[in-house]
């Protein structure tokens, strides 16, 4: 039996305790808020979604086949028939740009994802296990970072051969070390936190602490790193394709620029169309990544 005073104090204490819940809803709310104020990041997000949509719905957007040659209409200027003109084999440039988005997005995502996973695993191991493991992994990372990235990637491509799979490998190898460094640094600071000691005092095993307690704390940073790795990978691939070490059979934007450069004076659309596509995509990802970093940063300081 509760007296009316009991009821009153109980209601009051509930009220007080409820008031104690802080209005801060965490990282997600901060990101939502960032999109509201940071127009560039919002634009980046919209452009990325449009490019993804374009890549997915490519056959619906254009009526040509990207590899269909029409030798009767070579190097034609942009027209109603061919929006971005045609190249030296009579292929429709607009179609090739649209289909090229598939390749370039894949080249952005796949190696970034591989280097994200590899770099995270390496960084987590180095930071958490420390001592010799740390020394070994970090010296390995130093070796990778000591080379000029483009040169290293080109050497790997020359050695392994020009295929899209080897492109993924080369880009992953040059990218993992940066991620590993960031994750290691964060792990080093996180493992000294009291909640890690509390987890240990609860009998949680070392591996579980590393993956279930420390790793989730690194996630916001990893999302930012991933978003900024994607345009990097697209740029590296474009550069390498332009320099002639890309896969000659996959019509990426970089390869299109490379193939068009011989006709650049007469037919500027051959390099402008894929060049602008690269520029827009890379900038969109950079805008988004910068915005995400700004939104997440305050959470990383606490």
């Amino acid at each position, binding site marked *: 039996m509760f007296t009316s005073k009991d009821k009153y104090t109980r209601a009051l204490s509930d009220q007080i305790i409820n008031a104690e*819940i802080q209005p801060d809803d*965490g990282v997600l709310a901060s990101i939502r808020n960032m999109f509201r104020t940071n127009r560039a990041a919002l634009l980046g997000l919209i452009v990325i979604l449009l490019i993804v949509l374009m890549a997915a719905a490519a056959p619906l957007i254009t009526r040509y086949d990207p590899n269909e040659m029409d030798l009767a209409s070579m190097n034609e200027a942009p027209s109603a028939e061919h929006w971005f003109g045609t190249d030296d084999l009579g292929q429709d440039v607009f179609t090739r740009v649209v289909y090229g988005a598939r390749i370039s997005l894949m080249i952005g995502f796949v190696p970034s994802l591989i280097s994200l996973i590899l770099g995270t695993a390496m960084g987590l191991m180095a930071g958490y296990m420390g001592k010799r493991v740390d020394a070994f992994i970090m010296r390995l990372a130093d070796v990778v970072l000591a080379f000029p990235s483009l040169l290293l990637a080109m050497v790997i491509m020359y050695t392994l051969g020009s295929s899209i799979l080897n492109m993924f490998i080369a880009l992953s190898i040059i990218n993992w070390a940066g991620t590993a460094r960031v994750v290691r640094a964060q792990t080093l600071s996180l493992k000294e*936190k009291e909640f890690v000691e509390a987890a240990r005092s609860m*009998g949680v095993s070392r591996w579980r602490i590393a993956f279930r307690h420390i790793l989730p*704390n690194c996630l916001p940073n990893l999302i930012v790193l991933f978003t900024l790795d994607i345009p990097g990978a697209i740029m590296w691939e474009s550069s390498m394709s332009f320099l002639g070490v890309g896969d000659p059979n996959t019509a990426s934007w970089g390869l299109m620029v490379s193939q068009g450069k011989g006709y650049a004076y007469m037919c500027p659309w051959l390099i402008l169309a894929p060049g602008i596509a690269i520029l827009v995509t890379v900038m969109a990802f950079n805008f988004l990544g910068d915005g995400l970093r700004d939104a997440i940063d305050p959470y990383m300081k606490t």
Partner: protein
Amino acid sequence: MSNILEIRNLSVSFASDGIKERAIAVNGVDIDISQGKTVGLVGESGCGKSVTSLAVMGLLADNGRVEGGEAMFGGQDLLKLPDRKLRRIRGNRISMIFQEPMTSLNPVITAGRQVAESLRLHAGLDAAAAKARTIEIFEKVGIPEPARRYGCYPHQLSGGLRQRVMIGMAMVMKPDLLIADEPTTALDVSIEAQILRLMRDLQRESGTSILMITHNLGVVAELCDDVYVMYAGEVVERADVMTLFKECAHPYTRGLMASLPRMTPKGRRLYNIQGTVPNLRAMPAGCRFSPRCEFARERCRTEKPPLADVGNGHLCRCFEPRMTPIALGGDGL
């Protein structure tokens, strides 16, 4: 009365960068904790009270090392158990509450899941059962709307609620021993009183022994049955709580009692113990308290006093224990 934990002659040392000699932080400490009792471990910062508890739990930092002694718990020496076996005891039969409820909860895992993790680990419950049990525990530690709080992240909870979550996490397996390392230092006094009451209620219900590490003599008076006073890595006095507050015998303990602020006499200076704690690497030859002791004599500076029984299990490390009543916040010793 049987002892749940018997610490014998525990010594712990630490290495620091660039110094060859290891610093002895805990030197030959004996502590008994009997079943269902609350034992206070009191002393100023750096006297080795936290290190003692961490050593027992096998949680010393990488540069710390147990130099000797044993900690018998349920017929096993905790100091010699491999980590794999110790993990099954930690959080299950011995659990711990830390000082800062703000930082001892993982910010990116919901409060509920952190408690449920212990149940899944030690009781082998599946996710649904662990969740149901966690909500029960939340209710028991006085968290309002437990089902809703289950999904809250730590930053959405107040300090008092977070400490309740920590206590729930520590008590969920009904441990034989709860080590509370200054559990209320970071809380304001009204919340502190609530948390202490909660700990006492839970103890009464589950029969858990508590090792209460604190520098707050008020908390000791409130909660403890027996008290150990540590100074510079050694136990200097052991007594039941009544004896300690009435007639503590060691000059250091008497100094602590005398320096408690009192509300009544106005305009007088508070008593304080002169000097500072000795350097861990340069301990005085005789009694470690002698450089600060008002009553120190020649013998105190050269010869080390033993921890001797001064009556009814009241132990004191002093050649001349003061056996007169002590006034809290008094003018002198």
